[in-house]
């Protein structure tokens, strides 16, 4: 079962797309691991995830820290710190 990966703001611009459906290998177990795996997919991904400390994540539409687990079927989003209001 795949994961739905979403990108917003400059993460989206660097990756070059807003969403992709992917099947990471089983050793990708948490948000930080998924970021490392995604960074290797393309130069755009590499640029987007070059400084992981600048990226925030949500798993199934809840903000999550880097050690939060990810599982097949999850919706995982990556974006910069929010700036609404």
């Amino acid at each position, binding site marked *: 079962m795949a994961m739905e990966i*979403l990108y*917003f*703001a*400059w993460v989206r611009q660097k990756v070059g797309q807003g969403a992709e459906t992917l099947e990471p290998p089983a050793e990708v177990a948490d948000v930080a691991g998924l970021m490392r795996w995604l960074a290797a997919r393309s130069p755009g991904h590499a640029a987007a995830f070059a400084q992981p400390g600048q990226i925030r994540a*949500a798993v199934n*539409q*809840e*903000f999550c820290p880097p050690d939060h687990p990810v599982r097949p079927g999850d919706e995982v*989003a990556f*974006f*910069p*710190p*929010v*700036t*609404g*209001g």
Partner: protein
Amino acid sequence: MATVRVQEAPFDIAAEQAALAEGRVDVGGIAAFTGLCRADDGIAALVLEHYPGMTERALAGIAAEAEARWPLTGCTVIHRVGRILPGEPIVLVLAASAHRTAALEACAFLIDWLKTGAPFWKREEFADGRERWVEARASDDAAAERWRQAV
């Protein structure tokens, strides 16, 4: 009862306040905050992006938190997305209560919390074609943190 909306269209504060008080005689005060687009540094427009689905959940969660902390008769959060020109409104927060202190505190809480807890991102566009993503501010984190400590 909380109303949360994400929309491209402008909003009408008078209509939103009327909806909060409609048919009620137990509302003593409505506190409101309207956030507007400034033209700092020659900004020509703000473009607001959000995370559809998560945004509505986050706003509903923030509103529910306010209603749990203060005895509100209702609250409203409306956030615009898309392209917004200087002078135009971006966000509206309303909190209604029998007493003013609850309304004022809940209103401040809602806007502070929304700044750090809802998935919106602002891009600034300049007259010369440059654009720049707005960076999160430490002062916004501090403002939201203040409410966390107040629990």
